[in-house]
């Protein structure tokens, strides 16, 4: 029951919040956004809210329960605001997707079936729980210590004893374990259950959303629906066979989906590519900030910033190239 509620909240609330944020950022183009994109942006908002709660606990000494209430209240307010903005957009005729729905071919059904089968296999691998790779990671211990002490980093998660020398400040300000602890608190789910099972499944879903929107922009013609499906099948296949070494995308998703680097590599960075290709730079800042909130970065500048900068440079060069070609054609 709690697990169903958790998944309902982890999908519905972020979608509502995400659609609201996108509607604010891109008023005129609000109908061009997909639910998948709304979910990703909603999760960026959730990460941001969790970070606020985390910093309140670290710097103001608030208890975990207190910041959980704060986090839950903020999530609900943001989601409601998203609903109101969405309703206002719908009234104004902006929020309605008017694209025609094409009927699927037999080959499309086949591709969808293969994609679903691969995804089901991935979910089964994740929920088996024993396929977790724990070397160099102490997320569960950290979350459990937060829950047991009702505070953030009051004891060393690995020993349960008080700190003598302390922890690096850059680790202390990362809010991902607090987000997990707050979700455990809110839904009454055991730490290992949430961190090793629920979150990786959610990250798998978010990852597919990121690759889906990326596929949409790589194969953007209405006639390329089948290509998009094939792109997703290849993505799913690569997740399955790419788990041979730590650091590969498949390994991250199947064996440590709860880690910040997995979220970064499989959700934030593919989404950053989508933003770069679509030139939607306004959402770029939340992506960079989300990475800075969850992963150790170079003073807040992470890998998604490099990706976005790289895409911006390539876009600029391509634009110049196109302009040069046009002027040559004109001259000819």
């Amino acid at each position, binding site marked *: 029951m709690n697990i169903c509620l958790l998944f309902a909240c982890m999908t519905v609330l972020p979608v509502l919040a995400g659609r609201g944020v996108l509607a604010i950022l891109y008023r005129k183009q609000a109908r061009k956004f997909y639910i998948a994109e709304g979910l990703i942006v909603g999760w960026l908002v959730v990460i941001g809210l969790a970070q606020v709660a985390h910093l309140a606990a670290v710097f103001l000494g608030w208890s975990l329960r207190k910041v959980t209430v704060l986090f839950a209240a903020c999530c609900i307010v943001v989601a409601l605001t998203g609903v109101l903005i969405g309703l206002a957009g719908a009234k104004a005729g902006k929020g309605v997707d008017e694209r025609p729905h094409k009927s699927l071919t037999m080959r499309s059904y086949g591709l969808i079936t293969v994609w679903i089968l691969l995804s089901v296999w991935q979910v089964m691998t994740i929920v088996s729980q024993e396929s977790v790779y724990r070397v160099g990671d102490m997320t569960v211990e950290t979350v459990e210590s937060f829950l*047991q002490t009702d505070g953030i980093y009051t004891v060393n*998660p*690995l020993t349960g004893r008080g700190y003598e020398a302390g922890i690096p400040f850059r680790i202390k300000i990362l809010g991902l374990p607090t987000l997990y602890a707050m979700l455990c608190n809110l839904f009454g789910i055991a730490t290992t259950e949430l961190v090793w099972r629920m979150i990786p499944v959610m990250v798998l879903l978010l990852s597919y959303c990121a690759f889906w929107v990326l596929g949409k922009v790589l194969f953007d013609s209405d006639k390329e629906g089948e290509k998009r499906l094939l792109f997703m099948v290849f*993505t799913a296949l690569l997740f399955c066979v790419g788990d041979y070494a730590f*650091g590969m995308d498949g390994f991250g998703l199947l064996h440590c989906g709860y880690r910040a680097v997995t979220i970064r590599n499989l959700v934030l960075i*593919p989404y950053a590519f989508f933003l770069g290709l679509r030139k939607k730079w306004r959402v770029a800042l939340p992506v960079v900030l989300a990475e800075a909130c969850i992963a150790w970065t170079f003073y807040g500048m992470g890998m998604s910033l490099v990706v976005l900068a790289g895409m911006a440079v390539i876009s600029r060069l391509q634009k110049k190239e196109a302009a040069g070609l046009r002027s040559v054609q004109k001259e000819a």
Partner: protein
Amino acid sequence: MGHVWNWLRDAWMGWTKYTDAGKLVVLALAVLLYLGFFAKNRGSQKKMVRYGMVAATICICPVTAAVLMFYQTRFYDYQWIWSVVPLTALIALGGTVFLTDQWNEKKEKSTWVRNAFVTLASVTVVFLCGNLGESSVDVAQAREDRVAAQVVLEEVRARYGEDLCLWAPAEILEYARLEGNMELYYGRNMWDAALDAYSYETYSPEQKRLYQWMETLDDWDIQISIKEIQSNLEHAFADGVDCVLLPTEMSDWLQETETKESLPEYLGEICDCEVTELTDFYLMKKR
């Protein structure tokens, strides 16, 4: 100068290691060549391919890779600089472009059998470059280890509660902090050095020595004495430990054969602790 040299060496060795286990990176490079020089790319695809080529070159070239490693901080190893290369997206893009080109019904040679063969061959290439269906994590062993540790930890909790400091072999301590609030004499970072990055905490030479001793207790070729056990237990109890788990196997390596049978009672007497025999461990609680 030494630092710069180290960065460069790590960058070069990292590439060698990264391509050692599987060949998806190599496949991605092949896909980039195919998309860049043989396939027709439009707008977004062209941009993605160009970006991929530049990013992959940066990650392969030791000098630029070292710069990127410096940027991503020492917290991460070489493989993480490949985060900036969209390996999965590029291979998926290449596979999609290649297959849809092959499936094109307008092509003269396009037949059902040929399409099926090309599809199968493409999937096989992906499998050959990946894990070939073998999981990189030994799921059965992991389950067995965790269940075994949980059974022992439950027994400790049932007898003495959570409010204690435990010293036990790594196979037990590995899972002791996953639930509950039991304190440990030392944590997982004693044997997983990567975890040291998360705190400034260090262990005393005495704790390190006791860890080494504890981990040798299930070796088959050691010889231990009662005096040694007594001395180490006293050290641990004096250092704040309340409960100790020693593998029952260790009684086989005792030099004093006469004490083997009555070891639990004997240890209880000389160390002033309560000794209980669990399935594979002696559980000792300081009185």
